[in-house]
């Protein structure tokens, strides 16, 4: 599958999922399984993505430190974007200084 096909499939699929929700019968929400699916699956997916993107290609000290800095920023209740900037800055600085 070429990269463009993956991009198009993601675009079309994401749109259809949004549309399906608006158009579907509201009764679906009464089903507890549907609610649980929508809350639990994203947690597992996001956690897995963090792990794979951080350590999937081996341990990288600057990237790990950047992620640690993001945790500190989150603990200090930093806004969303600041968390990302802190992670990139710490990782970048450690790489440039060769630490």
């Amino acid at each position, binding site marked *: 599958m070429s990269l463009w096909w993956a991009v198009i499939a993601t675009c079309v699929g*994401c749109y259809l999922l949004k549309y399906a929700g608006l158009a579907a019968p509201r009764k679906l929400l009464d089903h507890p399984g549907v609610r649980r699916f929508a809350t639990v699956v994203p*947690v597992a997916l*996001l956690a*897995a993505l*963090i*792990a794979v*993107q951080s350590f999937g290609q081996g341990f990288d000290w600057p*990237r790990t430190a950047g992620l640690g800095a993001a945790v500190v920023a989150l603990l200090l209740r930093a806004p969303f974007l600041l968390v990302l900037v802190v992670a990139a800055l710490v*990782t*970048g600085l450690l790489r440039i200084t060769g630490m």
Partner: protein
Amino acid sequence: MSARHDAVRAGLGVGLAVGVSGLAFGAAAVTAGLSVAQACALSLFAFTGASQFALAGVVAGGGALVPGVAGALLLGARNGLYGLRLASVLPARLRVLTAHGVIDETSAVAFAHPGAARAGFYTTFAALYVTWNLTTFLAAVGASAVADPSVFGLDAVGPATFLALLWPRLKESPEDRKVALAGVVIALAATPFLPPGVPVLLAAAGALAVLVR
């Protein structure tokens, strides 16, 4: 101050603040190996941050694209659930257009302003859509001009984004912490043996196993 005024103000604030993280997506996407056009297409037409970052992440891992797309769509499935809840407050007439705006932030603002859900939803949608796409483009062009974006630590932005998205859930729910930990363990254990993208799906399947138990 009227409920409508409050909702519009919240929508503008959330839309602009979150929209700026299109910078992070544009940079992460190009660092991962997507072209500027592909990064922009995702922001214009997929327009749901977590799914976009997920696909970029799999591309970065040099990964199998089919599981990559599957992961992105699984993340996008929650938008369908927001839609179920929003259908009663949004006009059916504009559904084809409205549907595109059903994401975390627009739903959050709409639910937080029950008296003016419609104003909150459309203000957030407009502000976020314009900002997100503009910043995606700027950062994608910027990152593609840099020979090796990883020097700037941009490869840390993807995981940091997911962490920031996940954080409120980790803080509130002990059960979610267990699910997250299981996801991390499953994904890392499977990584050496399976093509990129598949371990993440396996982690989601693990969560489903917990569900049916």
